[in-house]
């Protein structure tokens, strides 16, 4: 009961913070709202038994990625008065409407799914979601090649970011 209450509180907060992200004119306010949304999501991950993902969410997302965003906002000195505002062309509104329709379809499809219950907690592996178990899944067999490809991707991204942002090589 208490857990359900906690879940609904955090989900309402996450959606509210998400709405704040896309409505604030000041990019710094958006970034802070996004951090709040990430924290709510991290708590939901923890409730869903994804302890490692919850920690990574705080460390990598709320920590590293958002600091990068806020750093760029500060460097560019973005304020409310130089925000370009909204693009409410018919095409954009239509796109959002179609997106909403697709979302609604997924919604209805999900509600018609066979079984919506979670595996009972006492039947779940006690090590579910720990770093040890994720390590076994990640490094034994199927996900080893994707993992190596991700490391290559990160290297390419670092080199690309330096090449793009440097004034003269």
């Amino acid at each position, binding site marked *: 009961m208490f857990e359900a209450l906690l879940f609904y509180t955090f989900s309402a907060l996450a959606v509210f913070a*998400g*709405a704040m992200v896309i409505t604030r004119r000041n990019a710094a306010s958006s970034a802070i709202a996004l951090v709040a949304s990430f924290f709510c999501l991290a708590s939901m991950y923890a409730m869903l038994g*994804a302890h490692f993902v919850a920690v990574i969410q705080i460390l990598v997302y709320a920590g590293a990625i958002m600091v*990068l965003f806020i750093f*760029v906002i500060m460097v560019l000195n973005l304020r409310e008065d130089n925000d370009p505002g909204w693009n409410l062309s018919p095409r954009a509104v239509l796109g959002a409407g179609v997106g909403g329709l697709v*979302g609604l379809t997924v*919604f209805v499809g999900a509600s018609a799914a066979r079984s919506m219950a979670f595996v009972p907690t006492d039947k779940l592996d006690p090590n579910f979601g720990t770093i040890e178990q994720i390590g076994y*899944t990640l490094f034994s067999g199927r996900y080893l090649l*994707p993992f190596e490809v991700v490391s290559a991707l990160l290297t390419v991204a670092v080199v*690309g970011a330096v090449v793009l942002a440097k004034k003269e090589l």
Partner: protein
Amino acid sequence: MEQVGLFPVLAVSAALFLLGVIGVLTRRNILIVLMSVELMLNAVNLSFVAFARHHGTLDGHVFAVFVMAVAAAEAGVGLALVILLYRNRHKVDLDDLNLLKG
């Protein structure tokens, strides 16, 4: 989380994803568009984690970690592009970038 079930989690995920889509389509500030993309990636991560709990397997968690790595790469390159853009045009307006528009 047994009393909650899968559906409310997916509903939150869908709502966050939709907010991200609306942000990408309607905002003209390139930084806020990038943040909306991050919001969408997080909504997908929530779905992955919820389905992992639903099935009692860890593959969803592994995918969530991969998505985070891709998001980090995307944020790095995207923000470098934003800085480059601002240096050349002194604006962060996406509607300003219509050179390749048909």
